[in-house]
């Protein structure tokens, strides 16, 4: 046998082990498999590569993706990742562990999840956070299911059209199979329409309403009166939010929300073509036992020492099977560590500064773009943070190509014929000036 770096077996080992098992060959270990099922011949796979060849090949593939300056958000944000984070998250005690079933030797994982839960509660203002969900859109889908489970007998959930398209698509998919009817609340004047919301609520049977804290046009929404109207119908208010922006914006709790969800990717997680990211969920305490996912709690051990454990597990699939609150098992634990380290480094001041830089940069870009005369304003005077849309006077594709040639990924076109821009603290004034110059060349 040629040997392979991940397999420690020598011929002698194999022989001794086969002998103990009482079979004469490795093939005999499959004697119970009906003959026709055993694969004959080689698999249609490439030949084994050495480690250096793997690096070389994947390096070539990585180089096929041109390096761009990202001026697009739309649900994935190019915020800076401090150097500390990958060093901590690549510690193999964290990286190569699994779900902390054996709490005595998993206090590291359990403690950072407890810290993560605490931080999500701080950002959202909610009472309780879980240990993470897959991503923002699936967190919204879980919130939809939860609203139905919490309100009993009601089967409709309303979605604001202001949610990003990828969020709508995932919630709609889950709803279709879970037997939830979806209704929509349109956007008027750049904001989820309160009167339309009341009209939809009046139709009855509404279990929950999902609205974006910042919508697909980048506008910070005013949800005054939403909670009252929704609670009057005994439905749940779900706020979909960018947790980075929650360092400054009114919290879901302050809006009166029952559930806060979103993607915590903006908290220092690289874009990485869409994943791994991390869905978060915070809820009011009366909904604690309806919550999906793992939850870590504090307790004491036999000797009275502070200790942490997975708790309230009677909600989960491995105990309740088809009666569980969700089917989720593996979630995004390492990304929760990623977020926890990020928030520890940034603190309230750092996060406020990130928002300040992004907001000032975005407004500078917005104003400079308008000065070019190449755009019309779509929602004049509406407040935005780091993302906005404009209506281009030329065909968006041509502008995008011109920007791409200059190394910018920007001016993402929307369904409505607008183009969207996003600025994070990573974008410099020089980059913005260069981008504006390229726009003008059209």
């Amino acid at each position, binding site marked *: 046998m040629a040997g392979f770096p991940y397999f420690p077996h020598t011929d002698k080992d194999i022989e001794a082990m086969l002998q103990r098992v009482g079979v004469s060959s490795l093939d005999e270990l499959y004697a119970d498999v009906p003959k026709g099922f055993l694969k004959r011949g080689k698999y249609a796979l490439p030949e084994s590569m050495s480690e250096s060849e793997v690096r070389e090949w994947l390096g070539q593939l990585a180089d096929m993706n041109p390096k761009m300056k990202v001026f697009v958000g739309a649900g994935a944000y190019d915020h800076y990742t401090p150097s500390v984070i990958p060093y901590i998250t690549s510690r193999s005690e964290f990286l190569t562990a699994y779900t902390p079933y054996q709490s*005595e030797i998993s206090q590291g994982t359990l403690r950072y999840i407890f810290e993560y839960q605490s*931080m999500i509660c701080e950002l959202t203002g909610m009472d309780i956070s879980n240990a993470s969900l897959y991503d923002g859109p699936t967190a919204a889908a879980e919130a939809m299911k939860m609203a139905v489970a919490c309100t009993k007998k009601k089967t409709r959930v309303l979605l604001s059209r202001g949610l990003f398209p990828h969020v709508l698509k995932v919630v709609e998919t889950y709803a279709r199979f879970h037997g939830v009817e979806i209704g929509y609340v349109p956007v008027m004047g750049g904001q989820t329409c309160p009167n339309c919301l009341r009209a939809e609520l009046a139709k009855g049977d509404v279990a929950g309403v999902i609205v974006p804290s910042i919508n697909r046009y980048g506008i910070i929404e005013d949800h005054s009166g939403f909670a009252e109207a929704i609670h009057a119908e005994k439905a749940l208010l779900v706020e979909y939010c960018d947790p980075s922006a929650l360092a400054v914006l009114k919290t879901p709790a302050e809006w009166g929300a029952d559930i806060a969800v979103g993607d915590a990717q903006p908290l220092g997680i690289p874009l990485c073509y869409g*994943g791994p990211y991390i869905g978060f969920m915070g809820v009011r305490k009366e909904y*604690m036992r309806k919550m999906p996912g793992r939850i870590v709690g504090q307790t004491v051990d036999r000797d009275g020492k502070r200790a942490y454990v997975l708790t309230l597990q009677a909600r989960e699939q491995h105990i309740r099977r088809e009666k569980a609150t969700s089917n989720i098992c*593996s979630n*995004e634990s390492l990304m929760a560590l990623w977020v926890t380290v990020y928030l520890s480094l940034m603190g309230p001041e750092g996060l406020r500064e990130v928002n300040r830089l992004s907001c000032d940069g975005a407004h500078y870009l917005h104003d400079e773009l308008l000065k070019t005369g190449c755009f019309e304003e779509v929602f004049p005077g509406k407040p935005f943070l780091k993302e906005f849309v404009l209506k281009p006077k030329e065909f968006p594709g041509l502008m995008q190509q011109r920007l791409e040639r200059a190394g910018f990924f920007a001016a993402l076109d929307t369904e409505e014929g607008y183009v969207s821009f996003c600025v994070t603290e990573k974008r410099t004034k020089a980059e913005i000036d260069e981008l504006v110059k390229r726009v003008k060349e059209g």
Partner: protein
Amino acid sequence: MKYYDKLVFELSRKGRKGYSLPANRFPSSPAIPETLLRAEAPALPEVSEPDVVRHYTNLSQMNFGVDTGFYPLGSCTMKYNPKVNEDVAALPGFSGLHPLMHAGLTKGALKVYQEMDKALAAITGMEAFTFDPCAGAHGELTGLMIMREYHRHRGDTARTKVIVPDSAHGTNPASAAVCGLEVVEVKSLANGRVDVEALKPLLDGTVAGMMMTNPNTLGLFETQIREIAALVHEAGGLMYYDGANMNPLMGVVRPGDMGFDIMHLNLHKTFSTPHGGGGPGAGPVGVAAHLVDCLPDIRVSGFHGNFGVILRAYAYILMLGRDHLKEVGQYSVLGANYIKESLKDLYKLPIEGVCKHEFVFDGLVNDGAHDDVPGATTLDVAKRLLDFGFHAPTIYFPLLFHQAIMVEPTETESKETLDAFIEVMRKIALEAAEDPAILHDAPHSTPVRRPDETLAARTPVLKYKDAQ
């Protein structure tokens, strides 16, 4: 492992900072209206960079991973996580890609998906894969959605039930419920396999399909799989393969050849990507040719699934190539059988015979169930193992046996490691007979000892503010 009793919040001092941001060179933007702002800043910790590094390094030292030692957690396939995978996933050409970039800007990433699609198809005998699901249970849900789509496309809306063996992973029935399907359980025989006679009367026009893992959660090959697949297909249903137990079949048997129509793979189990303390994983779903049309309408995650995880799995497949694939399956089976045969005199083996990648004991022979003979429970055995530097196996699952201990060694463990584990398991069995108090009080040498779970559930303290 030493006990370290800090939370990052407790290190916080007003005015300390751990970040560095560029100077603001922009004009001030107009103020956001007061009504849209939060009343108070969030109470996040204020700590320096060295504080953060030391804190999390200390936390990591209270954790046990595959790189620390043997982790025979059944059904979880805790194999070695190759380091080259981490390096290639961190390449800026991949990590800097925005998910909404068009194909012209992401040629390298798209090539990774295409190559993975081909490779997984070759390994499993499926036709095509979707990479959107982020974990195994997410894959199950996606696969069941595809199953329902298939019946809907044929205009057959009466199929609302899914059959699940009583030995199935808890995620199977849970995923079915999320997908709006009713779960019908089929019993296992005394030999641990699905009872084909009990299955027959369950099959009618209301059955959408059947979920199975093969080998099953007892680590036993479902020898009547051909008959089962034929019966389900005859009744108009589809066969779903839960890929959680794919490891022993790597390079030997393909689910597609066994008659399965839909399946998921856990890239974080079978394809060596790290478990990360409970994710991120990836659960790509493969379908047979007649189901490819059912894929497009189903969108289960925001963008393209967990690309970073898919990249790592691709690097693993490239390393293995066609040359070493079969060794994965064979060595995983060899290791499991070796442990089983070396311990079955002291631990109850409910079902004799060659297992696949894992097996289940039903507790100690001296299980403490009879007052006159000393003994200990499975929980005691698991906790005592921690004292010897091993992670415990999966315990109390599957539910078929009251004292289940489910052991899965994987192919990346040496004979010396397995021998050391066997020796400790034998020592623990002797302790249980001679001085069971040692087991009841275990673990003795871990940073904390048997936390009070009842207290945690009865008086939930779920965030720092609750603890203050």
